[in-house]
């Protein structure tokens, strides 16, 4: 029955904006003082779209996703900005109201399936827990739903596998089981935070293929957090590149690979080794600013080959490169 509902929803809402993040600024209180984790992040997400949120550690990509899910840790403060999911400002919701959204409207898959799954419960029980919380039902109907979900994530012999404990499964199967929990709603918005980083190459490729199929089946909207442009090229429709708590460039995926306009995006794309190429890799000198470091002007300026005095003193403007493609850079055009 849920499949029908989902089908209708996805048809009705093609191109509808379901998520709007507006000028989000988030601070963390730490032992070393206040650290700005996000510094004015804005983006929109349309139903059925896959957005790649790309950045290195500390760039703010995971904080962005935690803010969307209402899972920010206690030492975080939203300084300003808004997160609107289906028009509702989620930052103003109570924990009880957020709980109603998690699992049903939005859900998340994390990097390491070993830490997302509880080792002392069977995988079937853990998927069933999500089913019970979301839609209730008696034992038999929950079991049926669990088997359905395991089948959906292509786990062979689901009737037997649901009785497995996490350690009895391979890494790929564990990560797919975590996916089954995330799909129990099924949600409209799925946030995948580096779900394939701990997987082997062939298993990763199989996982991405599966994600693409399920997304099509369910009309899911996906935010895929990654540091790997290869994954972006493989499954994303749009890309937002993050650096030091800001989105520095966003564009359609083809546009971004064809015409990267921020010097950071360009350098990252050229620094990845490709098979069949032996020429020297482009490398970005220096390292990203440390958390809490005071930044004047463009945060990338100290590592940027094009930086001039203006970049080092004044905040870079948002420059439109073409339709739906902009870069936060004085030198972009």
């Amino acid at each position, binding site marked *: 029955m849920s499949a029908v509902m989902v089908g209708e929803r996805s048809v009705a809402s093609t191109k509808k904006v379901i998520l709007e993040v507006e000028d989000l600024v988030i601070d963390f209180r730490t032992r070393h003082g206040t650290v700005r984790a996000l510094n004015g992040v804005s983006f929109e997400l349309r139903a059925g779209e896959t957005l790649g949120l790309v950045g290195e550690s500390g760039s703010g990509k995971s904080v962005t996703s935690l803010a969307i899910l209402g899972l920010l840790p206690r030492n975080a403060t939203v300084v300003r900005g808004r997160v609107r999911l289906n028009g509702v400002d989620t930052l103003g919701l109570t924990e009880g109201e957020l709980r109603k959204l998690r699992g049903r409207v939005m859900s998340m898959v994390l990097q390491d399936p070993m830490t997302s799954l509880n080792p002392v419960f069977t995988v079937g029980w853990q998927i069933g827990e999500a089913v019970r919380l979301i839609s209730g039902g008696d034992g038999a109907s929950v079991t049926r739903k669990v088997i359905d979900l395991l089948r959906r994530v292509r786990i062979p012999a689901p009737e037997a596998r649901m009785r497995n404990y996490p350690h009895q499964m391979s890494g790929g199967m564990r990560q797919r089981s975590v996916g089954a929990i995330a799909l129990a709603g099924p949600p409209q918005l799925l946030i995948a935070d580096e779900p394939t980083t701990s997987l*082997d190459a062939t298993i990763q490729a199989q996982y991405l293929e599966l994600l693409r199929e399920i997304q099509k089946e369910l009309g899911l909207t996906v935010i895929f957090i990654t540091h790997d442009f290869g994954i972006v090229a493989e499954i994303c429709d749009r890309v937002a590149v993050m650096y030091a708590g800001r989105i520095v460039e966003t564009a359609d995926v083809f546009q971004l690979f064809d015409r990267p306009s921020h010097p950071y995006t360009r350098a990252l794309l050229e*620094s990845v080794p490709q098979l069949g190429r032996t020429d020297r890799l482009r490398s970005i000198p220096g390292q990203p600013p440390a958390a809490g470091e005071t930044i004047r002007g463009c945060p990338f300026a100290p590592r940027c080959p094009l930086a001039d005095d203006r970049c080092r003193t004044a905040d870079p403007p948002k420059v439109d490169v073409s339709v739906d493609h902009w870069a936060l850079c004085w030198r972009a055009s």
Partner: protein
Amino acid sequence: MSEARQMTLLELDHVSKVFPAAHVGFGPRPVVRAVDDVSIDVRAGESVGLVGESGCGKTTIARISLLLEKPTTGSVRFQGVDVSHGSGRQLKHFRSSVQAVFQDPWSSLNPRLTIASAVLEPLIVNRQLGGRERSARAEELMRAVGLEPTHLKRYPHEMSGGQRQRVAIARAISLDPALIVLDEPVSSLDVSIRSQIMNLLKDLQTQRAVTYVTIGHHFASVAYVSQRIVVMYLGKVVEDIGVADLERARHPYTQALLAAALPSHPSSRGRPLPVKGDLPSPYDIPSACRFRTRCPYAMQICAEVEPQLVGPVGAKVACHLYPAATTPVSRPSRATSPA
């Protein structure tokens, strides 16, 4: 000693490594055959990459090559001398000629030692150098890896991940080793730092004529610092291939690994993946050809006869699609049966 032998730097000869596994219930204690009858030759000046997925035995091979692990059977020869059964003094030459760089620069440096002590330790142990010579050498090493002599006074926690990995590399090259084993040298680093370290490794290779054995799961990164790739699957070598020949890879598993490499542009997304299913458990390895359960070309013979690794160095393959590999051998099956 033949000429070819003299040129061989490191030789793993029919090496196997068996680890006991956790005992469950009654019956014989299960074992994991992490490496099963693997022979690899590394010639001087030639860098070899070892790729494969978890459980393929590549890290065990790295540890055996460093003698951090003794092979259960088989032997390790370095410059023609069997080192796998030596100890103490006999290994002094080996220990100073073979160095390692590990994945995690956070755990490979002692947090209580300054960078100077970390970099100089091998020199103090192995060379009789005076204080002034030593500090001159330390400064030279820092420059060689792109750091400043002032970094020598720091402690590891005062440095970034990329800088620490540079320190680990400085320590590894301090004795001018003939061979450096690099186990996932860039995996724990941020994307923008990885290329810095890969370029550094490549520069050092040309400047110092050092041979690398690089272990990694990211095919393109390993290929970048190697001339030859050895592909492993569940404890076996399935293909040995020159980096320049990768487009003509013959083993279906190598082809699958290459197809699984992520695209460099969205126009080449969604390529068909010639592999199916999950990695088998290392406790329950498929009989005969281990890849047959995931192989799109699996035939009857693949379940019956173990394919042999045949061909010259840089063009070896173990697959029944290539008739030379099919020669039957009388070796008892080594799979541990639960019965």
